[in-house]
């Protein structure tokens, strides 16, 4: 491996250095150093920033802002982010969680990126030096993104409004067959007034299950009420095939696991 690392105190300076061809941003290292170790010769230089704001978690009036360098372990142990702890703990084993960052997870290709699935369901915004983007827009263009992610921000849902499930073959820690995150709001009569459902491994990056979301609106969270949503859950998906599971298998089991999550 022949990599030169440049360290900058500000994101702005790091962004400028990142414009050099072959240069990648170093967050926790679980993606880019791994790529270099695997012999990815397109990586010839690394850039990082030690800006302290990248490590900050701020919670104010239910609004959460997490710096891009915050690790999964830091989220999992944060007293006010208990809602997200399960999603943060879904990422890797203990050592990986001490290294993997929020910013890096947004770039993790399927079957990785479980936390990004949670952020998609939470309708987060992604902050860069150039401003903020809705996460869906960011994920769609992430392959061509050259701006360093500085933070993610979202509104913490009401208690029990957020649900997360990672399906893997090896317990307690294995690579995802698929992951699902939902943010549901219910009317006084118990019917679903709004639903956001995000899926991991059902495309090369986290996607929304829009047909299922639409089918769930106005329905009750029982076997009959969710049937249409489950039937529509694979609509628009293009599951990945990898050594963990085939696209066919993922499509077959998605409705089963979505059903369990919605009824849990």
């Amino acid at each position: 491996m022949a990599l030169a690392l440049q360290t900058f105190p500000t994101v702005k300076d790091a962004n400028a250095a990142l414009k050099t061809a072959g240069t990648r941003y170093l967050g926790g290292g679980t993606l880019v150093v791994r790529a270099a170790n695997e012999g990815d010769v397109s990586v010839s230089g690394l850039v990082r920033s030690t800006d302290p704001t990248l490590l900050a978690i701020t919670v104010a009036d239910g609004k959460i802002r997490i710096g891009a360098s915050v690790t999964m372990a830091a989220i999992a142990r944060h007293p006010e982010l208990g809602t997200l702890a399960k999603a943060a703990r879904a990422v890797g084993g203990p050592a990986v969680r001490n290294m993997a960052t929020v910013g890096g997870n947004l770039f993790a290709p399927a079957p990785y990126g479980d936390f990004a699935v949670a952020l998609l369901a939470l309708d987060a915004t992604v902050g860069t030096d150039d401003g903020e983007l809705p996460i869906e827009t960011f994920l769609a263009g992430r392959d061509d993104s050259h701006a360093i992610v500085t933070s993610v921000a979202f509104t913490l849902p009401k208690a029990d409004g957020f649900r997360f499930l990672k399906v893997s073959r090896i317990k307690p820690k294995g690579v995802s067959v698929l992951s699902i995150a939902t943010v549901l709001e219910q009317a006084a009569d118990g019917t679903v007034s709004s639903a956001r459902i995000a899926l991991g491994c059902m495309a090369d990056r986290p996607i929304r299950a829009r047909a299922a979301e639409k089918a769930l609106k106005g329905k009750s969270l029982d076997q009959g009420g969710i049937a249409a949503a489950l039937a529509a859950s694979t609509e628009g998906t293009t599951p990945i095939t990898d050594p963990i599971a085939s696209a066919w298998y993922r499509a077959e089991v998605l409705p089963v696991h979505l059903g369990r999550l919605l009824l849990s």
Partner: protein
Amino acid sequence: MAKVPVQFTLNGSEKAEFIDSGTTLLNALRDKIGDTSPKGGCHQGTCGACSVIIDGELRLSCLTLAETCSGTAITTTSGLAEGGVLHPLQRAFLDTFATQCGFCTPGMIMAAKVLLDHTPNPTRGDVVEALSGNICRCTGYEPIIQAVLTAARSNSQNAA
């Protein structure tokens, strides 16, 4: 390749080296410093054989660049024994036959040490979770889990 200075504490001793920029901590420890206790298994962050403790946190030395560790305190398995006396975890791994080929053992012991540092009386579930990032292809894991539980019991007996 540019050389960069790196200074950190390794198992209580100050280390200062000039290394090639971009060198992983695993390679710096093994090839430059001569501490071969962290093992290079997958180099992808999957097997955990290279696990070390950096400022109290379990980390993968194969995915950590050495130059990002300046100013830190690093612990490897070779630093656990004191005065020729094995650490309780090392002793328990021997006593319960928790090693076969031994390749995963240093990473397992590092993961277990972090667990016991924070949770002196872990449940079996705690141990399984703590070791979940470390792969062993020999033992079937059960002897390793028993070794960690044995070390925990030994620690609490010593403290009593």
